[in-house]
Structures are given as C-alpha cells and as structure tokens.
C-alpha cells in the first residue's frame, strides 16, 4: 500500500475508534442506569454512525491502496480484516437498535463489543501505519 493511503486508512480508523470510544462511554453510562439513558443511547448511536462512516472510508482507502500496490481489492492484512469485523458489528448495532425488543441493554452491549473490536483493529493488530 502506498504510504499516503496507508496513513489515510490509519487516520480514518483512528477517528472511527475515537467515535467508538465516546459512544462506548455513553453506552457504559446508560448500562449503569445513569439518568437519561435514552438520551445517552441516542448520542452513542450518533457517534457510532460517524464511526461506521469513517471505518467505511478506511476500508475503501485500504482497498484502493491494496489495488494500487498489489492488484488485489482486499488488502488481506489483519488491520483491515479486524476493521471489517468491527464495521459489521456496528452494522448490527445500527439495525438492532431499530428492533424494539433489543433497544437499551442489547444495543449497549453490542456497541461495547464493537468498541473493543475497533480498538483491536486500531491498536492491537495493526496500529498506526
């Protein structure tokens, strides 16, 4: 991958991870039965949407860089693989939030799982390019 696209992907993943971290904080507070849980969940979802979009951009940057460098559309590196996994978890979070029975605790737990996975993608397996 060319350094520019690699740095771009890392930057986007970092921004996504930051959004996810703030969202996770809101989810954790809502799980601890803090007042105005619904409001916290709403702001957490806003942050997850931003993270979802940023991770999507990061995956696209990774695919573009991989195509330029190796002629492969999928980078195949652990960072991209775990970014896709975290992104799919957020896809699930954004959808289960629309099911009444899963609002609240289930959404918060899934959001926290997505946060852990995106940190894994950002710090644990890939790190900054």
């Amino acid at each position, binding site marked *: 991958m060319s350094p520019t696209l690699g740095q771009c992907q890392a930057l986007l993943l970092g921004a996504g991870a930051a959004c996810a971290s703030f969202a996770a904080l809101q989810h954790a507070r809502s799980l601890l039965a803090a007042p105005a849980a619904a409001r916290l969940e709403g702001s957490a979802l806003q942050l997850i949407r931003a993270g979802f979009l940023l991770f999507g951009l990061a995956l*696209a940057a990774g695919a573009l860089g991989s195509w330029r460098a*190796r*002629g492969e559309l999928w980078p195949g590196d652990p960072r991209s693989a775990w970014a*896709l*996994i975290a992104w*799919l978890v957020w*896809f699930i979070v954004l959808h*289960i939030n629309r099911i009444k029975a899963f609002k*609240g605790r289930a959404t918060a737990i899934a959001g926290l799982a997505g946060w852990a996975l995106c940190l894994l993608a950002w710090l644990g397996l890939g790190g900054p390019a």
Partner: protein
Amino acid sequence: MPEPPAPPPSPGTPFQESIPRQALGLAAWIGLWLLLEARFRHLGLNDRQQLAAFLAILATAGALAALAARAWLFRLLTSVRFAVTQGLFLLGSALLGALPRPGPAPFRSLWGCALLALLAVSMLAVSWKRRPYTLARLGFLLVHGAPSLVLLGVLWGRFDGVRASARLTPGVTVERLAGGGPEVLLPGFGLRLEAPARPPDPRLYAFIPAGADPAGAAGVREVPPGAPTALPGGFQAEQLELIPDAVETGQVMENPSALGEPALRVVLGLGLPSPLVGHLFARGGERSRQDAPGGRFAVVFREAWDPALLASLRPAPARAETLELTAQGRTLRHSAQPGEPWQLPGCTLQVTRAYPDFAVRPGPGGEPEAFSRSDSPREPWLQLELADGSGPARRLLLSARDPALSDRLNAPHLPPGTTLRYLREGEETQRRFVLFTRDDRQVRLLEDGRVVRAEPLVLGQPFIVERGLSVTAEALLEHTEPVFAANPNPGSGRPGSGHPVVRARVSDPRSGRAQVCWLEPGSRDQAPAPVLLLDGQVGLVYRDRLPGPGAPPPELVVLDPAGRELARKAPAAGDPLRFRGYRFAPDAGAPWGDRIQVVREPGLGLIAAGCACFLLGCAWMFYLKPVLKRREARP
C-alpha cells in the same frame, strides 16, 4: 431505567421475527452451497462454469420461491431481524477470512457469493418497500442499492476476470502466460521483458522457503564473502570459496537412500596419457552414451539387452535435415537444402553451402577458409546468408553437433533471444559400439548392427575394442547421487570470461547442524533452481544480481502481432503497466523479480461505484436526511 431483556421468541413466532430460526435457515442455505460447490469441483467444472451454474440455480430458486410464497418472502427479506441475522453471518464469514486457513477467501467462494446475493436481494426489497422515493430517502436508496452493484462487480470479475502470475524470459515475446496459475491468452497482443544490458554479476543469495516461513517475511538476503550472514529463524549462511573460472569435477556417488537411476562408471583407454572417465546412466537418453573422440567408437549402458538395439546402434543417414528458428516464443522449421531461400518476416535466410566434415585452413590470402575434410558426415556444418535489406548479407555458420558453438558464433548477427539450429533427424554416425547391459551383466561389441563379440561384465577388467582401445567398467552404482565439485581452470586467461562457482555453507547454531554445497550460476535468461538445505529449511541460489535501488529496472513492452510496439514501461509494485484493462506488475510474492502478475478485473468499476454509493448514501442518511426532513416539515 434500563429496559428488560428481550424475551425469547415463542414457538408461535413467525419465521420473519425469529432470529434463531432465520440463523438455522441461513446455515442451511450456506450448507447447500457448500455441497453444490463440492459437487461442481467433483464434476470438474472450471470457475466460469461453476459461476454459470450458480447463477442458473439462484435464478431458478428465486423465481420458484417468488411464485410459491411471494408475500412471505417479501416480509422475510424486508425484516430488520433478518438484516441482523445476515449481519451476524457476514460477521462470521469475515472472522473466518481473518483466520489463516487454506482455500479461497469466503467472499470468493460460491457460498460467500450466495450470502452476498441474499443480502443484495434483501436490500433491493427494502428499497422497494420504502416507496415513494423522496430526496430525503436518496441516501437510503444509495446504501441499499450499493450491495447489488458490488455483487455484480464481484460476479463479473469472477466470470471474465484474469488473475495469474507468469515468469517471462528476457527478450522473448509471449502471447500466452503460463505458470503460477491458469494459462492466460493475451487478446491480440504480446508481451516482452527487456532487461537492461550489463555484464553478468552473479551473487549468492539465501532465503527461507515459503513452506518453512508461512508469513513470508524472511525475504531474500545476499550472502557476501567474509563473515556469516544471519538469516531469519536463527540460521546462518556463509560463502566459503569463490572460483571465478572453474572446471567442473563433478562425480556420481553411490547412495542407497537416493532415488537416482543405476549408472556405470567407465574408463576409456585411448592410448592417451590420461584415460577418459565418465558415467553412463541406464535409462536411455544422451546420458547413457559416451562417444570416444575422433569417432572411433561409442560406449552405451542399458538396463537390459534387447535385440532391437541392433537396429538403432548402427550407422544411419539423416532422415531429414532441417533448420529450426526460435524467436519470440515461436518455433519455425524449414528444409536445410542449399539454394532454397527461406522467407521470414523482414528477412531472408538461405543455405549457401554444406560441409559434411567441417574444418578450417588458411586460405590463399592468409584468411581462414572453411572446407570439408571428407564426404563422411562427421562434423556437418552449414553456411547461410541472412539478408534483411539493411546492408550486405551476413554470413552465419551452423554446426549440427555443437549448437552452443553456433549460438556463440552467430550471436552478433541474430536478434537477442533468437536461436537457429541445424537438425539432422535420425542420424547415426558411429559404426562401432561397446554395449554394457545391467540385467545379464554382459558387454558386447557391436559393429554395423551385428554383435561381433560378447563377454561377461567384470568390474575392473578392460574390454579390448581393438589394439590400443579399451573400455573398463570400474563400478556399477545401483542408486546414484550427483555430487558437484569444481577446481580452478588452469588454462584461464581472460578475467571475467570464466565459469564462476561458489561453495557455501548453511548452519543452524541451535542444533549444530551444517551443510555445504557448490553452486553455479545460470544464464542471464535462465536463473538456476535454488538448492534447499537443512531439510528444506534454508534455500541458496547463486544467480545474476537482483535489480536493486539505482539499477535500471527491466521494462515490459507490449507488441502487436506484427511486432510494433504499443506500450512500454518499467513497472513497479505500485506503478503497473496498464493496457486494455490488463494490469501488469512485478509479482510481489516472487523474491527473484522475474515473475509478473497479470490482473484483469472487469467488475472493478461496479465495485468502486457500489462502495462510493454506500459511503455517499451513509453520509446522506446520517447527516443530510435530518436537514431535508426538517425543511420538508416546515410549513
């Protein structure tokens, strides 16, 4: 207050609302495609046929399901719970793809495509459900239409795409790329690798083979003379001795555990101060025969006596004499009779004279002059003229017995990568053979296709061919193993003209094991095969210097069938040569830099459009839609 956990679905919950039952259904859907994929492979269907069958089955199943239960299916496909279930399965597939495992990536397999197809259909159904379409819903439509575009791109790429890796020989134009994957036929153009001209510069390289280091991070390291070079995994490689101009003194050794064919070590007594020693291998071919100098006799070793050998070991004239021209990956043949011009693209080749027993003597003016010593075809040579209209015709000389010598003589007059051969098919010039046979341990003297004498094969006892000529079988090796060795060439005079060899050692300091071997470089066009040591854990190769920083890289040239240049570039990893939808780049997985990766991805535009639609749709849905809705709500 946190909400109570979701109650488990009751037995009466419809399928569209039950995530566990949907998960079972999706598992069955994937299992069905796994079975079909295995069946397709069993039937020997290629990628394209598998995909055609996949689309046919998918279309039939979709049509039948739509006819049988359209409303039920529509409710399922537009259910948010089904989207969650699909998300969980996609998550599982991505986890599977992240694990190191054999086989194709999940989304390149048929079951992965089937999962994507279901997702795409679901999203299209959801888009249909969200009618009427307003500007605020554009983002939703873009997001939910994107997977269909991506899927179409993936399927198109799988149906009509190309992904291969091929090794190119410098100077040779190829229209078919083979090796490292399926053969690729380039449509209407050829490809040639042009390496920059520079003197040979062989170096010793060590590497960890891919099998021993699955991560492939070991790479290739140059082993300079001097101190040992550390290799990944704790191994060491060391250059022990370099002989710039060597004479090979290779031997064949008996090794009961080797798989080599039986061989006979013979000594030819020819009345010379030092007898000739050679090894004859039992299973036919050129290695089973040795000709004594001067055409006096030949020695042959065979597994078993066969009377049919009498017909082949006797003098025979050439059935046909032909010229063989190999250029740009093509081989052409023409009669070698003098006086018949051979019209070739851009030039004419004509045999002007034939010398059955070629020799050279000083001519009247002191210039060397070719002549034939006799009419017997001992050293058949041809003299040819090559005319290409650019000047006077050039003279070529071709030897039937020593093609390598002809190549050297004619190299200045032929384009790089072109070889010209003089072939005499079916010719046998020897009339006397000494035939050793392994099964009956006999030695026979054959003259003009008749056995004139037969004796038991006794090791160490000379077999007299005639006065002053003898053959002695010194040893019969049942399991042979070639052992390479070399000494400095005592007659070496010109620096840089010799045949360099290097002796190297690899060692494993942890176990104390070490192995030593001799290596010789291949030609510029043909690198030697690497030698694997320490049970295949370390590889060594002595080959021409790899292109490094500062060295001019080889260029790829695209040519049309008439040989006109269409494109030229020195491709790099991130800067490939692109031509008519093909992408040619150095193969990053090949350490020696002589392989190119060929990729054609016709669905790339659709995939890129799908990704762009998805991201744009997300941004629209998350950030623009609320603004638009607020505007719509205003009175």
